[in-house]
């Protein structure tokens, strides 16, 4: 697989480390009502879809940026690559 890095251009997926579903960006607030249930779901449950999947890749052997890659889990086709920082900010995170 080739990941088209937004800053560096096309890079071999072997340069990256895979973390998992990009929902890991949405860490619950530990002071929320029912935070224990939210952290259980955050830590352990996954959608695991067959089809389009947003996921976190870390460019360990490159610029060490975190990316959100939109990839099809049936075909391995990558349709979108964004900096995780931009995605997190768009979702209202400060960084």
């Amino acid at each position, binding site marked *: 697989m080739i990941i088209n890095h937004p800053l560096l251009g096309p890079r071999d*997926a072997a340069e990256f480390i895979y973390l998992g579903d990009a929902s890991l960006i949405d860490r619950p607030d530990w002071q929320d009502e029912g935070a224990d249930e939210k952290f259980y779901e955050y830590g352990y449950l996954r959608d695991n879809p067959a089809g389009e999947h947003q996921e976190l890749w870390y460019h360990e052997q490159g610029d060490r940026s975190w990316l959100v890659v939109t990839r099809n889990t049936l075909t391995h086709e990558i349709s979108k690559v964004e900096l995780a920082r931009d995605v997190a900010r768009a979702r209202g995170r400060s960084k």
Partner: protein
Amino acid sequence: MRYSAFKILTQGLTGNKGWKPVWREPDPKPEYDIVIIGAGGHGLATAYYLAKEFGITNVAVVEKGWLGSGNIGRNTTIIRSNYMLPGNEPFYEFSMKLWENLEQDFNYNAMISQRSILNLIHSDAQRDAFIRRGNAMFLAGADAEYASAEQLRQELPFLDFDNARFPIKGGLYQRRGGTVRHDAVAWGYARGADSRGVDIIQNCEVTGFDIENGTCRGVETTRGPIRAKKVAVCVAGSSGRVMAKAGMRLPIESHVLQAFVTEGLKPVIPGVITFGAGHFYVSQSDKGGLVFGGDIDGYNTYAQRGNLPVVEDVAEGGMAIMPIIGRARLLRSWGGIMDMSMDGSPFIDKTDIGGLYFNGGWCYGGFKATPASGWCYAHLLAKDTPHPVATEMRLDRFKRGHIIDEKGQGNQPNLH
């Protein structure tokens, strides 16, 4: 029809005209006591033990493709019970004992060969860890044997003992481990279940669950609705897809594991050899091909194929530990989809939906578990209580903090 040497002889002398189809191809009935989803190794074993050990025969096994078309036909055929944790090891040893008597039990030649499995040791710390695991295996009634480097030099002279990065300092044997003709396991269980009245319905994909007021009443399929008192999901690899139809999220990610076979060679490898430090394991099939593999690719996927970096990694591991493999030519490679769970251990449990049961999360270790998985799932379905060796394989164990994490990796499925 009971198979025997006498039968082969008489059939051979009479032109082999008396062999019958091994199982029926029935149409689905409108209702069953239990519908099992997935006619793979585990699903068929579940149906077999439900009929044979628990006397429940009004059972259907529905399968979207053909019988045995999933991971039972895509694995590297290894059986072993060399785990450590109390939530796992008694289960896998139970499975090993079932393997040892399986061919007599279901009257089918599964070519079970207890040719040993060896885990290589490269450091003092690893030796300590493996000996600890060996002792844990003794506690569950399994066998384990420490082998010194000198002994291994005699037994396996082709290994690279003086590898600069991973010199071989010894190994942990399980002599009762070995290999099995994997497809025959599916066929044997299918035949045994079918002959006891279980309907195995192929080309019948489940498209939804019939759930009323929190209770599952049956399934919708491509061959019409089938009602059931209990519905047993058994589709490891596709668990995420199937359980999503019931609105459930699971502590599972789907990953691909690749495997490889070389051309046929004369006998060179006596048992199964694992080089965990180098992401490589190998055995030799009865046809002579070296069967080997390594780590999972490491990203979510439902495609039954992997990518080249892992092919390279596995080949490097093989060359590092047994350089003679470099002269063998690769015949074919393939990928199978694994239910990688959050702690590397499986689930055999009820769900929060009444009448809906779940078996999955087998990671890359489902094949060896086939008999015990079937037996324990059948026990749960028949009695609504878990089998004594499967009490910890619960879906809610993460919420309760009772994880079964052999490697201590935490909730990162691609590291297990």
